[in-house]
């Protein structure tokens, strides 16, 4: 014997229930597999997805339900680890911080690997040149005092605020791989390395600022920046990247003259 509720479920859905939150979205993903072809190709996937979900959820749906060979990096899924920077609808973003509803799901959503780095498979690129530039600027505290510190290195709130913005970097490479100067020859240190140098150059506790400035005075250092502002637009942490680069340029000039 059917209960009233069962009967209702069989009949036309109640008003309000009819409009399910799910919509159909096309993901147009740039695929590359060196074991199949030398060429990268676009592949379309149709998904039923809640527009309040993120692009990363869509990629998960593809990988888990449609095509297990899709390859991409992600770890935290909450905008902290910096693993999943990719070019979504032509802009560098973190897949885990981009909601479907915010990027016009009526049209196919394009997902590509970030540019300027070697594509290893699908959305995975070789990050080595990026981290090479990062290591080059010595992204660690340097002090002349060689003894073990016996107490905390104190710093005033103002001194801490001086470089607060550049402490937020998660090394996702969204900025560096959005920079047209980096795209050309990959020799430019790139915005991320400069941001992380800035974080120590303007830290009152650090004593290797001069050395880092000298490293960035390279012919492929800060002077290659053409103030395109792509990096500032791309940064998922909202860091004012171009401003940080300008501050390093200014520090170089004022220290020389």
């Amino acid at each position, binding site marked *: 014997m059917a209960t009233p509720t069962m009967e209702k479920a069989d009949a036309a859905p109640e008003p309000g229930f009819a409009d399910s939150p799910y919509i159909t979205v096309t993901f147009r993903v740039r695929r590359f597999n060196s074991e199949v072809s030398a060429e990268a*190709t676009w592949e379309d996937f149709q998904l039923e997805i809640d527009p309040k979900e993120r692009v990363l959820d869509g990629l998960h749906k593809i990988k888990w339900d449609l095509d297990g060979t899709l390859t991409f990096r992600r770890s935290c899924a909450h905008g902290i680890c910096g693993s999943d920077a990719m070019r979504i609808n032509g802009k560098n973003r973190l897949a885990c911080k981009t909601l479907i509803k915010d990027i016009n799901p009526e049209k196919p959503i394009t997902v590509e690997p970030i540019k300027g780095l070697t594509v290893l498979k699908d959305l995975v690129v070789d990050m080595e040149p990026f981290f090479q530039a990062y290591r080059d600027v010595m992204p660690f505290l340097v002090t002349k005092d060689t003894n073990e510190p016996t107490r905390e290195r104190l710093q005033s709130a103002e001194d801490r605020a001086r470089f607060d913005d550049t402490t937020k970097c998660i090394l996702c490479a969204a900025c560096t791989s959005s920079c047209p100067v980096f795209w050309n020859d990959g020799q430019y240190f790139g915005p991320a390395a400069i941001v992380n140098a800035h974080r120590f150059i303007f830290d009152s506790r650090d004593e290797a600022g001069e050395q880092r400035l000298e490293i960035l*005075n390279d012919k492929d250092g800060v002077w290659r920046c053409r103030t395109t502002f792509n990096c500032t637009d791309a940064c998922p942490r909202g860091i004012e990247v171009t401003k940080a680069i300008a501050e390093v340029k200014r520090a170089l000039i004022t220290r020389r003259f």
Partner: protein
Amino acid sequence: MSTTETTASGVGPVEGGSYNVDNPAPYIEAPRQRTKKTPKSTRGNFEMAAWLFMRLSGVVLVVLVIGHLLIQLVLDGGVSKIGFAFVAGRWASPWWQVWDLLMLWLAMLHGCNGLRTVINDYAERANTRLWLKGLLYTATVWTILLGTLVIFTFDPNIR
């Protein structure tokens, strides 16, 4: 579907290569990897000087170029007044000689350095860069020398 099959693998029979697990396609390398062989570069102050020069010469050029355009093209009858006599009259004064000389040098060096950065940013192969820059520097030196020569040796009585 059969047509999409061929594009999905991306390699037509013409290209010949068939890639598999044992014979993977080569990766497209990032343009120039920084390797041990990459020259440990020039940390001189040249790029900083060039960067500063662009801004400083730009500021001076605003005055020189706008002044030049006003005098030549707008004030006092506009272009129609320009002729041999007009140029000869202006270059009789050391003030306009220095003005034009400064404008020549600054604009040429500014434009040359600007194009140098454009070449650095856009030319991909080392050889292309070399040739484009060679052409650029030759043209710049030639124009500066010729212009300077004319300003200093100009003879209003030439016929």
